[in-house]
Structures are given as structure tokens and as C-alpha cells.
């Protein structure tokens, strides 16, 4: 293919695909260095305990053990964190969650390191854990941390907060703790450097944020902490926080030896923050005709022991709580609380999947009450550009929310399950125990919107460098340098496409992502194609400008043309052509006198913080999506089979149709997982299922084909008109599957993941909410009757 065919808009294949399929692509856990040590982490078994004593002497006496580090060995700042540095590198005097690191060991091999962990003596005084976020936020609750127990409270008031319509629906909903469960557990290789710094190769989402936190904890200037991205085996938000980085660096510096630090699957489950569990109460009111009058909601999220990105997640939850609907009056309260549960932070969708489960269940309930079609109700209320959001932010174009729900509703429905269907099509699959007469089909819809990029006034940017030169054979080659973390999403593909389009070359080399170039920001928030794509494009445009100016000078064109050479010269088909003169110069000729290089830092438009009433202009942009799910449910055994999923999504300009499809199919599968199988279960703060045996991920037997419709209206302020696409489908998939199951069984289902006990007539049914309404019946927010007065 030519540079043009492999530019933006084409289904260009991954440049790393052959190495990945061939088994030669190097992931963080595959790295080694001569003489390297193997490091493992000791974790607290108690969700809350005082640490009386830590004695490493016995561990250090084991032959082959090189070093044991604990809290006393942290030379710099003792804590780290994405937004607030509230998490100790190692627990010193107190542990706040089961799984919190207490020590780390480096030894000649991994089995020796594990034996050494067992020999570290830690004397704990267990304390009663505080695991209920409503109790932890309530008056009289004991502070679990010097920063207190409330990470953030948001009180959003919009329009007339007391306005109510004649039709009222109200209920509470519960969302379990989902894990990112990326397939490659955390790993890094740390090499101590002669200059007193460290070089680190690791799997992460945000190199520069990691560097800032590592350097602070090591007490080193940032330039002595050099990070390079190793192969990343998935992320989904779970690698945005620091986990093993500081531990590995401390051991490498303590021993003067390269250290490989890695987690196994159990540690991975305990080691990174999860998706926030949520308890949500919603009251929607509408006119008899079906126009929303108000939405009242209270959302409590359990942030676990440390802040991670909790303050930003709750803002997303609150500002999206009413969904992509015109809601003139809103009273939306959010609270994210510190408990002794595992820390929660970023996961694909970032607070929006939780509230989508709530607002979409409410829309179905409202449609039922109004005897309206659930699609029709959504269409009637769907946001249009120019509408005012509950934050007061005016919605800019485009947001095809209405088109999205109409598009999925128009897709053909799958064939009915019959005796002739393959046995694998039945709920329970090959177990073949489903009695067809007891299988019910349900269809459910969900519509949502999700913010793109970072919010609330964060001055976000991405920097990239581009260089155009001749290779040894005299052919033009472009080199792109960005610190954007490729975690599987396909930035490496898109960066090459952008460079080919802008520079008109075929050969593009992507340098490894490292801290030798400015920050690209995080691979999260659906932001890298827009932000780092924008940076790469900007750098390439600057390279072209410089090259054309050089050519203009060489051709003796007047100074005003040299100043603005694009007026007179264009790059096309590997040549620089004078627009009027017809002069032609090949790129190779233009580059003969040397390379051209440029750097560009891309910023998105400025946003603002939320004021005391949750009002502002907090989000850069949004994308909408709608899912329709069809399920079959075995009424006897409570087993669910997802028969089909249809998705219509607002994608902006599509840079790579193949990559887009991969993102939306993967995002749908993760949403399906939260609906029917994925939950990290805790009992008194202890995770009871931190293995892939017990934490169930969707398999080939669970995920149906995706009937996908891309809605492609260019985003005006984004490079090429792109929108991020990774998160939006995850927001709607869970809610759609839940709606379909609800339709199949004819019950109010208020919890995800749905459990068999929610679907069958157990002799002793368990109310997952423990009595409704969920919020306000405990300490945090007073009694239910006080909600209206709030």
C-alpha cells in the first residue's frame, strides 16, 4: 500500500501484530538483565490493623536473599497517589486494606523471594474494619486516615431542584466491584544507574505520572528516573496507578543490581485499584406525556482505602447521572468514601457505567409506568446539541444520542431459540440442562453518553516529536516520538497513519515510548487518539512547514512565501510541487541537505471546575452510544445467555475502521461481563475470589457477535474530527443486558452482576439491597424523608 492508502481512514494493520502473533513481542514480564534479582511483595492479610513490629532479620538470613525493604527504607515522600498522595509506599504503622504492601524482597530467584516473604515477621494488631461506605461517611465514624473518610462530596443543583412532575418512579441500584483483569499481570525491570538514578522498563498507562510519583518517593530529581514502556498486556484503567514501581526501584537501589518485580494473578487482583462499587438511589419525574421534569439521585461509591482517582470518578458519576436526556431540574448528590475495602480507581467508563445502570433502569421503569415504548421515551427525551446539561454546560455538536437509540432499535432481531438450535445456544450451553419450555427471551436497551478527555479544568496536553529524514538507502523515513502508552488500543497504528497522511511518506518508525520526550498524558479517558494523535499531527505539520520553507528558500521564492510556504507549495505523492510554478522536487531531494524535526504540544479547549452547586463547563466533549441486548434466561437455574448485542455509537471521524471495531467489540464484552458474571467479592474487607477460577471473565462461549453501526459526525475541535471510542460501549452494554434480563424474567433487578438467586424462586430469597431505598437509611445522609429537603 502507498502512504496514502496506509494513512488515516484506512483499515491499516497493527505494526506490532506479527510480533505479537509470533510470540516475539516483549512484554514487561519477559524482560531480563544479567545477574538480575527477582522481587516479590509482602501484603497485609488484614483489612485494618496496627503494625506493632516488622522484623526482616530472619528473611535476610535466608541464602540468596539480597534485600528486604519496608516503610523505613523510603528515602523520599512516604506516600504516593494519582490525585492525592495518600497511599503509603509500604504500610508503616497501620494497614488499611487486605493486600496492602508491607515489605518487598529481592532474591536470586522467585521461589527464594517467596520463601523470604514468609520469613518476614510482622506483628499485627487487627482492628475492626470499616467496610460500609455509608457508615464510614457518617457522623461519629472513626477516621481511617489523617485525610478523613470522605474523598469527595458533590452536590449538584440545577434548575428548580424542588420541581417534580406528576409521574414519579424511584428505586435503588447496586453495582458490584469489577476488575480490569488485563491479561498480563504487573511487571517491571529496574536497573540502577551509575549516576545514582534508575532506569525502568514497565507496563503502565502514564509514564510521566509514574515518574513524578517514583521520583518523589525515591527523593530523586525526576531526570534521574528514566522510564520506558515495555510491552503492555492490557490496562483498562488498572495500570493508571503506581503499584510495584517504587518497590522495585527501592530494591534495585538497595542492592545495586537489576531487579525484576512482578505480580502473579492473585497479587494483580489485590495490587491495583478496581471499578468502584456503587449504591445509587434515583427518582425520575415526568409529565404524563413523557417529558422528563426532574432527576434526583444519590450515589455513594466505595473508594476503598486510598484515594486513587476517586475524586474524579465521582464527578463523572454525578455529572452523567441523568444520562443523555434533557433534564431541566436536577438534584444530584455524590459521595465517594474511604473504607477498609480494596482501593478503587479508574476503569473503562470511569464512573459512567455505574450511573448508566441506574438511569437506564429508571427510564425503563418510567416507560412502563407511562405505558410508552422504552425506545420512544428515550427518543423523546434525548439530548440535542444546544441543550443545557445538569452542570449548566451547553452541549456542543455533535451528539447523535437519538440516532443511536433509533439505530439499534431498527436492527433485525435474532432468531428464536428452538429445539433445532445448537445446544450451545441454550443458557448453560453444553451442560444441556435447559428445558426449552422454561427459557424466556428478553430484549433490553440502554443509551448513555460519556465525557471524552480529562475534565474539570485540568490543563491536559500531549507532546510529540516528528523527524523526517533519508534512510541509508536515500528513502524518506519519518520517526515519531511520543510517550503515549500503547496498551493494546492501537495508538501505534494510528500514529503511523497520521504521520503518513501528513508527511506523505510510507515508512514511519515509532520510537519506544519513554520519558525522553514530553508527557503524552494518560492512556485513559478515551483521550489518546485525540490528544496524542493531535500532538503527532501537529509535529508532522510543523515538520512540513519547515521543509517547505527550506524548499522555498532553495527555490529563491520571495520572503513572504518562505514565511508561509503552504500558499505556494504542496506535498503530494512523495513530491513537493509548486502550486503555480509547477516546480517539482522529490522529498528525497528536499531532505538531501539534512533532517527536519519538530515538536508539538497539543491542548484541548479549556474547561472549568464545578462550583459549589456542581455547575460549570467541566467536560471537553461527549460521545453517545446505545446498545440493544437480547438474552435467554433459564428460569429454573437462573442462567443467562446473551444471544445478541447491537451497538450504535457516536465515533466521530473514523481513523481506522478495523481498530474501531476491535475497541467496541472489546468494550461490549467487558460491559457484558459486569452484567452477568464479573464481581470481586469482599467479606469484611477481604477479597474472596482473587483468581480467574472464581472471578469469571467472558469467554468465547459467552460473547455474541456485535451488530455495529458507527455514527460518524466529525468532532469540530478534534484532529480530523475524531472522538475517543474505547469507553462508551462499556457504559451501555451492562445496562442493556440488565434490561434484557429484567424483561425476560419480569422482575425488578437492581443489582449487577445479576446472580442466579436474583432470577429464580429460591425458598429463601435474598434482597440484594437489604431493604430499600438504599440511601438515606443509614448514617451518611439521614433518613429517606430528608432527601427532598437535602
Amino acid at each position, binding site marked *: 500500500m502507498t502512504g496514502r492508502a496506509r494513512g488515516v481512514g484506512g483499515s491499516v*494493520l497493527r505494526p506490532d501484530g506479527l510480533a505479537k*502473533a509470533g510470540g*516475539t513481542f516483549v*512484554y514487561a514480564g519477559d524482560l531480563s538483565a544479567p545477574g538480575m534479582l527477582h522481587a516479590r511483595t509482602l501484603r497485609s492479610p488484614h483489612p485494618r490493623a496496627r503494625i506493632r513490629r516488622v522484623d526482616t532479620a530472619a528473611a535476610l538470613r535466608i541464602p540468596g536473599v539480597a534485600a528486604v525493604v519496608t516503610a523505613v527504607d523510603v528515602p523520599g515522600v512516604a506516600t504516593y497517589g494519582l490525585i492525592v498522595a495518600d497511599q503509603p509506599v509500604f504500610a508503616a504503622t497501620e494497614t488499611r486494606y487486605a493486600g496492602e504492601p508491607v515489605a518487598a524482597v529481592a532474591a536470586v530467584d522467585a521461589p527464594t523471594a517467596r520463601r523470604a516473604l514468609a520469613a518476614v515477621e510482622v506483628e499485627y494488631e487487627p482492628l475492626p474494619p470499616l467496610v460500609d461506605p455509608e457508615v464510614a461517611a457518617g457522623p461519629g465514624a472513626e477516621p481511617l486516615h489523617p485525610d478523613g473518610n470522605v474523598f469527595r462530596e458533590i452536590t449538584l443543583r440545577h434548575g428548580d431542584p424542588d420541581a417534580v412532575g406528576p409521574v414519579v418512579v424511584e428505586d435503588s441500584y447496586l453495582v458490584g466491584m469489577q476488575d480490569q483483569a488485563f*491479561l498480563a499481570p504487573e511487571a517491571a525491570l529496574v536497573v540502577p544507574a551509575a549516576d545514582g538514578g534508575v532506569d525502568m522498563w514497565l507496563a503502565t498507562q502514564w509514564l510521566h505520572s509514574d515518574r513524578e510519583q517514583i521520583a518523589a518517593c525515591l527523593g530523586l530529581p525526576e531526570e534521574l528516573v528514566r522510564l520506558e514502556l515495555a510491552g503492555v498486556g492490557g490496562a483498562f484503567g488498572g495500570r493508571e496507578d503506581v503499584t510495584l514501581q517504587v518497590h522495585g526501584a527501592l530494591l534495585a537501589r538497595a542492592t545495586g543490581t537489576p531487579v525484576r518485580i512482578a505480580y502473579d494473578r492473585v497479587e494483580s487482583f489485590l495490587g491495583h485499584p478496581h471499578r468502584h462499587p456503587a449504591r445509587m438511589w434515583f427518582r425520575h419525574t415526568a409529565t404524563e406525556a413523557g417529558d422528563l421534569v426532574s432527576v434526583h439521585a444519590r450515589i455513594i461509591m466505595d473508594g476503598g482505602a486510598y484515594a486513587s482517582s476517586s475524586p474524579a470518578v465521582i464527578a463523572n458519576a454525578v455529572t452523567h447521572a441523568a444520562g443523555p436526556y434533557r433534564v431541566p431540574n436536577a438534584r444530584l448528590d455524590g459521595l465517594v468514601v474511604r473504607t477498609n475495602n480494596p482501593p478503587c480507581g479508574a476503569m473503562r467508563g470511569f464512573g459512567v457505567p455505574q450511573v448508566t445502570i441506574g438511569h437506564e433502569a429508571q427510564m425503563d421503569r418510567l416507560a412502563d409506568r407511562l405505558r410508552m415504548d422504552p425506545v420512544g421515551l428515550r427518543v423523546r427525551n434525548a439530548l440535542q446539541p444546544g441543550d443545557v446539561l445538569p452542570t449548566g454546560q451547553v452541549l456542543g455538536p455533535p451528539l447523535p444520542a437519538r440516532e443511536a437509540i433509533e439505530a439499534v432499535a431498527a436492527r433485525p432481531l435474532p432468531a428464536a431459540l428452538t429445539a433445532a438450535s*445448537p445446544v450451545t445456544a441454550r443458557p448453560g450451553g453444553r451442560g444441556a440442562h435447559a428445558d426449552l419450555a422454561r427459557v424466556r427471551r428478553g430484549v433490553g436497551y440502554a443509551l448513555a453518553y460519556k465525557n471524552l478527555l480529562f475534565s474539570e479544568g485540568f490543563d491536559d496536553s500531549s507532546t510529540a516529536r516528528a523527524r523526517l529524514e533519508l534512510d541509508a538507502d536515500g528513502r524518506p523515513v519519518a520517526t515519531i516520538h511520543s510517550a503515549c502508552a500503547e496498551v493494546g488500543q492501537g495508538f501505534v497504528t494510528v500514529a503511523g497513519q497520521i504521520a503518513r497522511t501528513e508527511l506523505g511518506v510510507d515508512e514511519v518508525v515509532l520510537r519506544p515510548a519513554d520519558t525522553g520526550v514530553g508527557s503524552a498524558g494518560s492512556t485513559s479517558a478515551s483521550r489518546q487518539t485525540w490528544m496524542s494523535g493531535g500532538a503527532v499531527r501537529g509535529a508532522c505539520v510543523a515538520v512540513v512547514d519547515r521543509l517547505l520553507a527550506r524548499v522555498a528558500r532553495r527555490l529563491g521564492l520571495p520572503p513572504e512565501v518562505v514565511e508561509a510556504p503552504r500558499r505556494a507549495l504542496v506535498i503530494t505523492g512523495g513530491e513537493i510541487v509548486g502550486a503555480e510554478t509547477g516546480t517539482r522536487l522529490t522529498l528525497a531531494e528536499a531532505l538531501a541537505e539534512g533532517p527536519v524535526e519538530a515538536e508539538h504540544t497539543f491542548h484541548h479547549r479549556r474547561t472549568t471546575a464545578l462550583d459549589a452547586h456542581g455547575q460549570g463547563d467541566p467536560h471537553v466533549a461527549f460521545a453517545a452510544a446505545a446498545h440493544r441486548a437480547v438474552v435467554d434466561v433459564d428460569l429454573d437455574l437462573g442462567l443467562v445467555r446473551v444471544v445478541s448485542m447491537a451497538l450504535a455509537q457516536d465515533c466521530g471521524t473514523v481513523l481506522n475502521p478495523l481498530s474501531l471495531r476491535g475497541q467496541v467489540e472489546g468494550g461490549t464484552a467487558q460491559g457484558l461481563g459486569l452484567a452477568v458474571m464479573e464481581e470481586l467479592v469482599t467479606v469484611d474487607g477481604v477479597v474472596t475470589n482473587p483468581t480467574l477460577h472464581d472471578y469469571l471473565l467472558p*469467554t*468465547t462461549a459467552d460473547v455474541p457477535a456485535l451488530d455495529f453501526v458507527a455514527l460518524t459526525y466529525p468532532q469540530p475541535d478534534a484532529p480530523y474530527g475524531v472522538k475517543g471510542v474505547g469507553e462508551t460501549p462499556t457504559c451501555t452494554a451492562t445496562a442493556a443486558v440488565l434490561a434484557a434480563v429484567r424483561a425476560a424474567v419480569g422482575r425488578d433487578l437492581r443489582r449487577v452482576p445479576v446472580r442466579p438467586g436474583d432470577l429464580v424462586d429460591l425458598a429463601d430469597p435474598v434482597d440484594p439491597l437489604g431493604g430499600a431505598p438504599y440511601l438515606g437509611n443509614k448514617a451518611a445522609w439521614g433518613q429517606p424523608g430528608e432527601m427532598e429537603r437535602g
Partner: protein
Amino acid sequence: MDEVQIRLRVNGLERRGRVEPRLTLADFLREHCHLTGTHLGCEHGVCGACTVLLDGAAVRACLVLAVQAEGREVTTIEGLGTPENLSPVQVAFQENHGLQCGFCTPGFVVSVTALLRDNPDPTDEEIRAGLSGNICRCTGYQGIFKAVRAAAGNTP
């Protein structure tokens, strides 16, 4: 613990090693043979990322001890094709976007290779059933199914 001398063939080459009896085949391949394409996603036999062929049968290398491979033939992802000459299954994963982060891919490729050898023209249901022991967290599997169908067309 006393180490044991083992001898086996890996990707057609004879390998000898002194190993602890409890060393897994996966760790032997990764640490002793430096064949890091065999990935460890869970080390408890669920994710399938470490799938290799043992005397032709797809097995999870994290659930096999190195000593159990004594005298046997192991084929890893690296043995199915070289970077310059990848197998049709490997090429199909690339061409059909059957991978994103790629960590699960070697295990899938090995499982698909065994599946298509035993059943060169599988139905969609047979593909789903045959691969239900490998987990992918990125793709939602649809690109993988396309890759299998494409490879089935390319496999003699």
C-alpha cells in the same frame, strides 16, 4: 530439593536442563529456554495464555511440570513460525485484527493450530467451543473468530 536432569525436544531442538521437580513447564520454557512467547496470565490453568503443544496436544504449560515433559516434544508459539515465515494461523490473527494487547495471542494461536489440525473446517459453534479455554480481555473475540475462519480457508 534435589534437582532432576531432564531431556526433551522444544521446537525441534533437544534441550537438557537440571530443574527442581516442581518447576513448571512454562517456567522452564520462559526462564531456561528464554522462550518468552509462552505467557503466564494466571498460573492456575484458566486463561490459556501459556498453551503449548505437548506431543501435539494443546496443554497449559502452567499445569505441566517440566519433569513431565521428559522425553517428549514441546512446540511453543515460537516453533509454529519464524518472524520471517509465520504460520497461516499467525498471519490470520494479524490480518483479521484478532489481537490488541496480544498477551493472549500465543495461547490462542496454539489452541487454534491444534483445533484446525483436528477439525480443518470447524463450524462457528465448534470454534467457540474449541477456544472457550482461552481468555482474551481486549477483543471481545470477534476478530479471533474471523482469524480462525480465515486460517481454516488457508490451511491445507
